[in-house]
């Protein structure tokens, strides 16, 4: 059979590459405005309400591996098709550097399993350079994005409380759930050492916001994606309504290879591999919006070489792939002896913490590092899964038994069985998530030697943490121990030291990677303008995490959504004015 590229005959107004937060939002806003859209997704269709795909409310014994993370990295019931490694889709790393890349190949992408932590960037977060001289300011500020945060809050729903904390802007919040018992314990301890804890801000419907989505029924399983759409997933909250307009053609299992351009260098569509028939297709569109995730979009742009764009598309600055940065992360576990032998009740709650700690030291100048972190918490009487009961020998020798006497760590028999019951729900964890400083020499590029199974050149990562991030992780551990001791808890495990970078997770591990197509006013030092439009190619936009100049200590999704909406409004106007 001869090689033939198949051409889709229809010309679309807009082709959107990727159906996660950014792509879903663009599809939603622009389909409502009447544009004809091709939405490209590299994975299969997904709907959490589809019984064939649903994992919500499944029991551990329904999985022969009891939910272990062998197949899906966060466990069998986690709703991510993909992971750190995907069969046939490798990536490489420069020797001596680290980056772990998490990809979800499915409609809605990683929004199907994310933590729903929906924090606005504050005024400081857009202008950090003004305060510490490091990195770069965003070209826009909080006031530019605020109207869109407001709209996102109302359209998608997020619970929280108005706290009037300067760099933690309040929003349109649904009422939060009451704290769980371990959260009350942690709060009491944290308060004593000056660490604040406030209701978390999660995009979960504690109350309904429209008649299409159900209210949360407190199963604690947002990571499994909600079958009544009680939490935010792009697939169910954005793509579904976009499809209902009748203006969107959804292409699933469509792995985009490159953005096509004409002689003038304008985007004319995309080429993609259909994973089902392994044939190459092209699709024409007047505008292309990249929303494949920061690294995937960079990869596609870098692979889109032409006479007009010899360095890859939108890359005259040579900055596509540069300034890659992820949140920092470090964590510690503890035991609350007062919770041993606790009374049982259903404390599942929402899918995540009910309280969290926002960064509280913006005014401290002598920490040895300049960017902040927030703290996330877990604990309580959760549903057991693979790993439950592991490591009892590291715990049951640390506290007196029921008879008041210390006992030997480990054991077996009825005594051991009773310990498993006794310790259930008494452990908890704290995890810091911090802002790293974006640096040009942390980047991804095309590996000249390696292609994936579709023949598409893959990414090679170069990423190293600096002392800024290491010191931040060290500070996290100081805080963890302070809080644990102050609440009468026992810190479990060993405190990581300098030899392990203070337990700092590998870059990529927090799955907040952004910055690869950063925005700015100067085409020499940025890839897209303040409306997410490529400087070099007016009919090309990037609406995933790529345009982030810096990522704050805030989880990026809410800002991706706000900026994608803002960019879509701008695009709408520009098309109306025939500027594009």
């Amino acid at each position, binding site marked *: 059979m001869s090689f033939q590229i198949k051409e889709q005959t229809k010309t679309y107004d807009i082709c959107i590459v990727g159906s996660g937060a950014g792509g879903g939002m663009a599809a939603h806003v622009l389909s409502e405005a009447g544009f004809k859209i091709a939405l490209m997704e590299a994975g299969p269709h997904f709907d959490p309400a589809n019984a064939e795909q649903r994992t919500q409310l499944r029991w*551990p014994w*329904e999985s022969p591996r009891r939910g272990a993370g062998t197949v899906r990295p966060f466990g069998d019931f986690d709703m991510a098709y993909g992971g750190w490694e995907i069969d046939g889709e490798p990536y490489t790393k420069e020797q001596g550097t680290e980056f772990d890349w998490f990809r979800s190949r499915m409609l809605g992408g990683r929004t199907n399993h994310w933590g729903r932590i929906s924090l606005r960037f504050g005024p400081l977060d857009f202008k950090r350079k003004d305060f510490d001289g490091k990195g770069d300011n965003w070209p826009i500020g909080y006031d530019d994005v605020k109207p869109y945060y407001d709209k996102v809050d109302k359209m998608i729903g997020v619970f929280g409380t*108005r706290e009037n904390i300067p760099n933690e802007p*309040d929003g349109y919040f649904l009422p939060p759930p009451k704290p769980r018992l371990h959260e*009350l314990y942690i709060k009491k301890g944290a308060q004593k050492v000056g660490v604040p804890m406030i209701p978390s801000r999660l995009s979960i419907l504690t109350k309904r916001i429209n008649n299409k989505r159900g209210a949360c029924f407190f199963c604690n399983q947002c990571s499994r994606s909600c079958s009544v759409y009680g939490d935010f997933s792009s697939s169910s909250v954005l793509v579904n309504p976009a499809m209902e307009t009748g203006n969107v053609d959804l292409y699933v299992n469509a792995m985009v290879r490159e953005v096509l351009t004409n002689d003038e260098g304008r985007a004319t569509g995309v080429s993609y591999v259909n994973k089902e028939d392994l044939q190459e297709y092209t699709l024409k569109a007047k505008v292309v919006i990249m929303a494949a995730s920061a690294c995937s979009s960079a990869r596609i742009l870098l692979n889109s070489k032409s006479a007009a764009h010899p360095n890859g598309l939108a890359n005259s600055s040579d900055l596509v792939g540069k300034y890659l940065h992820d949140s920092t992360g470090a964590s510690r576990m503890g035991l609350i002896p007062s919770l041993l032998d606790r009374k049982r*009740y259903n404390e599942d709650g929402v899918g995540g913490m009910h309280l969290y700690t926002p960064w509280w030291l913006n005014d401290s100048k002598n920490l040895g590092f300049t960017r902040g972190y927030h703290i996330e918490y877990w604990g309580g009487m959760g549903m*057991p899964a693979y790993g*439950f009961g592991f490591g009892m020998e590291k715990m049951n020798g640390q506290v007196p038994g029921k008879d008041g006497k210390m006992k030997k760590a480990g054991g077996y028999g009825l005594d051991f069985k009773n310990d498993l019951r006794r310790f259930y729900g008494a452990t908890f964890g704290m995890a810091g998530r911090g802002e790293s400083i974006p640096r040009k020499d942390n980047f991804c590029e095309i590996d000249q030697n390696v292609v994936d199974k579709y023949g598409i050149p893959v990414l090679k990562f170069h990423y190293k943490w600096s002392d800024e991030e290491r010191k931040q992780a060290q500070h996290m551990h100081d805080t963890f121990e302070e809080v644990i001791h102050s609440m009468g808890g026992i810190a479990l495990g060993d405190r990581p030291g300098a030899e392990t970078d203070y337990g700092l997770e590998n870059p990529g591990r927090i799955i907040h990677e952004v910055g690869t197509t950063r925005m700015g006013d100067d085409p020499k030092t940025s890839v897209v303008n303040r409306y997410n439009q490529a400087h070099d190619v007016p009919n090309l936009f990037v609406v995933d995490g790529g345009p982030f100049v810096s990522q704050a200590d805030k989880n990026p999704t809410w800002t991706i959504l706000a900026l994608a909406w803002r960019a879509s409004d701008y695009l709408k106007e520009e098309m109306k004015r025939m500027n594009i």
Partner: protein
Amino acid sequence: MDRRETIKTLVIGGVASGFMLHGCVPVEEKKEEATPQPADNGKGYGRTPEEAARDAELNGKTFFTEHEMATIAVLADIIIPADDTSGSATEAGVPEFIEFIVKDIPEHQVPLRGGLMWLDRESGQRYNKQIVSCSAEERENIVKDIAYPEEVIPELKQGAVFFSRIRNLVATGFYTSQIGIKDLGYVGNTPNVWDGVPQDVLDKHGMAYDEKMLQNSIKPEDRGEIMDWENYNV
């Protein structure tokens, strides 16, 4: 009825959505569309075709020999025996879980197989028989020497490392089983209305919700209402 219709019927909000999930649906609807139903195991557990194929492949293989499985069963019930509250590890299917998990997570294979051999050699040296043929007292004599890793004598260190591993797997296998979850008293994984920690528990722990928490938090009766932003100021 198409999926969109199904969703509409599901998202009636409030506590009612919980009843829907239990399968309490209007009679005119087809049963298979009353998604999701926790007890519905006919459709697997939400696998992709590739994942289902992998499960099937692993299930088609056998790793442990009959003798090894018998030894695992003996150890499993030493680690988690039956009591007044619940059955034993073997009653909860723990050996079958361990057989599966070593195929799924191969790094367990050598330590477990080697550990079982180590154990039979130890019982051979002490009693001139394999663990499965030992008396309860003889088995316990060996187990108690390797069950406390901080106190184990150097000569038995490897045995203790093995025992910690199999103890982990037995504990997990038991407490992720139907019997184990009931034993543990986990009562979630079902539609619920969270309205905070029960008062008697708060009292026992000397905790209380402060005024602000009580005022701000969601009231169960409001969950079904659609949020009204009319008088909400940011």
